[in-house]
């Protein structure tokens, strides 16, 4: 009970803190913080369309966040979310624009599936290099991000270019919209179902349990008969596949084609989201949604109040800084002790 209270209380306080500093900043540059924040709120929540935009924004973040969560749970640092996201989309666009004779939902399903596989393969590379050659996955996955993005650039300026703009053709079939008032597409449903599956897998199945064990102590896992390397490779592949599916969904749901800047920054956002969400799939979704609120709201706020875009980025960073600092703060041994002194009945003998 007291834990729940603290868990809700602290993020709220942290976000408030960052807003106060943001307000000071806005005032300094001659803006009106109240007005700005009103826009922020309106932008994120005011109309069904705006709420929809927020959800749309959250979708790719959920995928990359889940990808990071899955890898980190097994103790592997997949920083290659962006590359896997992009490769998923790349294969999807290739398949869906070249495959003849299939249309409609079957085409989407094929396209998403192959995108997922592509992400999985891209994720498998650092995994294989790690378990066979002992290479550090961080460096490999960062390098692969650059390669994937350049490869995508090659495709949309070269072989898959359509017309006179450096971009690919648009996907022939798009993910359907759920509501008529907003652009929210079925990608969010896929994301949420995936979240539940991952949550169930990690915390309610034996394989998930073992995967977490490997993530926490590899040596003990090995001594206790868990196939450590298999799990590590598996988590790389699944992590990549999740990101790849994310890229595919983003392609079919919102972007429809590849062009410069596709998927930019989602990989690292995902890592931050997963960590802030305490490596819990549900937490990941919530944090991804918070990020999305900040971003859609921020767009409106910037547009409405006319502040430089950078101010919005500063406020966003402050939210991260304060939110994480807040939760780290209450987890400090000293502070935990303080809380337990305050809340619990005193005098408990040692065990």
């Amino acid at each position, binding site marked *: 009970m007291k834990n729940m209270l603290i868990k809700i209380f602290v993020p709220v306080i942290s976000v408030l803190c960052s807003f106060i500093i943001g307000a000071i900043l806005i005032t300094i540059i001659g803006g009106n913080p109240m007005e700005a924040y009103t826009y922020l709120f309106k*932008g994120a929540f005011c109309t069904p*369309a705006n709420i929809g*935009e927020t959800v749309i924004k959250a979708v790719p973040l959920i995928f990359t966040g889940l990808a990071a969560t899955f890898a980190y749970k097994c103790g592997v640092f997949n920083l290659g979310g962006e590359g896997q996201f992009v490769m998923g989309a790349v294969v999807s666009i290739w398949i869906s624009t070249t495959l003849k004779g299939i249309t409609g939902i079957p085409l989407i399903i094929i396209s998403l599936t192959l995108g997922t596989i592509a992400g999985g393969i891209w994720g498998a590379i650092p995994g294989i290099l790690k378990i066979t050659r002992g290479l550090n996955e961080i460096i490999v996955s960062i390098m692969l991000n650059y390669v994937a993005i350049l490869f995508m650039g090659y495709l949309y300026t070269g072989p898959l270019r359509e017309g006179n*703009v450096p971009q690919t053709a648009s996907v022939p079939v798009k993910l359907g919209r759920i509501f008529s008032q907003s652009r929210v597409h079925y990608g969010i449903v896929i994301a949420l179902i995936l979240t539940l599956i991952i949550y169930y897998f990690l915390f309610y199945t034996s394989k998930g349990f073992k995967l977490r064990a490997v993530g926490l102590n590899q040596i003990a896992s090995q001594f206790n008969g868990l196939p450590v390397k298999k799990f590590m490779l598996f988590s790389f592949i699944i992590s990549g596949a999740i990101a790849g599916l994310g890229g595919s969904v983003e392609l079919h749901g919102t972007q429809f084609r590849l062009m410069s800047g596709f998927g930019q920054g989602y990989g690292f956002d995902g890592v931050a989201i997963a960590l802030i969400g305490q490596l819990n799939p549900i937490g990941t979704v919530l944090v991804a949604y918070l990020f999305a609120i900040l971003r859609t709201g921020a767009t409106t706020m910037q*547009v409405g109040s*006319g502040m430089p*875009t950078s101010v919005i980025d500063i406020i966003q960073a402050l939210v991260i800084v304060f939110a994480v600092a807040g939760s780290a703060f209450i987890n400090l041994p000293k502070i935990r002790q303080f809380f337990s002194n305050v809340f619990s009945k005193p005098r408990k003998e040692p065990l």
Partner: protein
Amino acid sequence: ASSNSTSTTGSTSQVESDDVSESETEDKTYKVAMILDSSISDGGWGAACYNAMITAAEKCGFETQYTDNLTTADFAPTMRSYADMGFDLIFAPGNQYTDAVKEVAADYPNVYFALLNGTVETDNIVSLLPDAQQIGYMAGALAGLMSKTNSIGFIGGMELDTTKIKLESYEKAAKAVNSNIQVYSAYAGSFSDSAKGKEIADSMVTMNDVDVMFGDASAVDSGAREALSNYENRYDIGQPSDLLAIQESDVVIGSVVTDNAAMLEICMEDVKKGTYGNKTIYGDLSNGAISVGTFSDDVPEDIKEKYLEIVEQIKEGTFIEE
């Protein structure tokens, strides 16, 4: 900051009708907004487009606003926000925004869109199309005339279509004025990595003895100019602003100026008159949207004369027959 936010809560599909009636009253202040995927302070494309909007807006009495450093995924939502906020005209300076503009324009029939380098014409989208070929020809001709080493260079930021056309016609024009010309080109893969621009220019000079360069890569170009300034008799041709009119330089010999403001002005007037849509405003030498910039002293009089003659031919369409 905006003050009439009360009427801007309309849904995506339809902007409320009182907005429309409002736009017909005379004392309405019109508003124009610009979106940008790079920075408006990049000293290149972004800055030029922004300044064009400011210039045009001052003339036509528009209020202005901008959002820069956008990622691809944010193009559409940002324009939607502007549309919701009651902006009349949205300026999207680049054909990479085409999709997003089309999508948002379809949902906001009463908001107007100006798409630079675009090829779309609808009821509320107007394309502004400075003639990339003419720009390339002009730069190429000047480079060809000025080069003493018979090697000239080109730096692209990304492989945009306009960039490719510029490169192509740059090469053609240079070869037309000097058949021995060799053209070297490279892409920085970025519009902001100035250091890379410097390295590319440096390697072109040292390896290929390039002595005149032209670039289509914003901040990267300024890096290239820095490399050139380390050598004697190496020159750069500027664009889209008239660089020598703003800043002194011992490298820049002239600029191919694109006056997007003139084209934007036409759009703004159309907005006011209510005659917006279904057209492409071409920008070329003949309507002054493209022009010859200030020359430096390094350009000898005879070359200048010859060059201006060629520009005249380009304007007439007789320079290179296709």
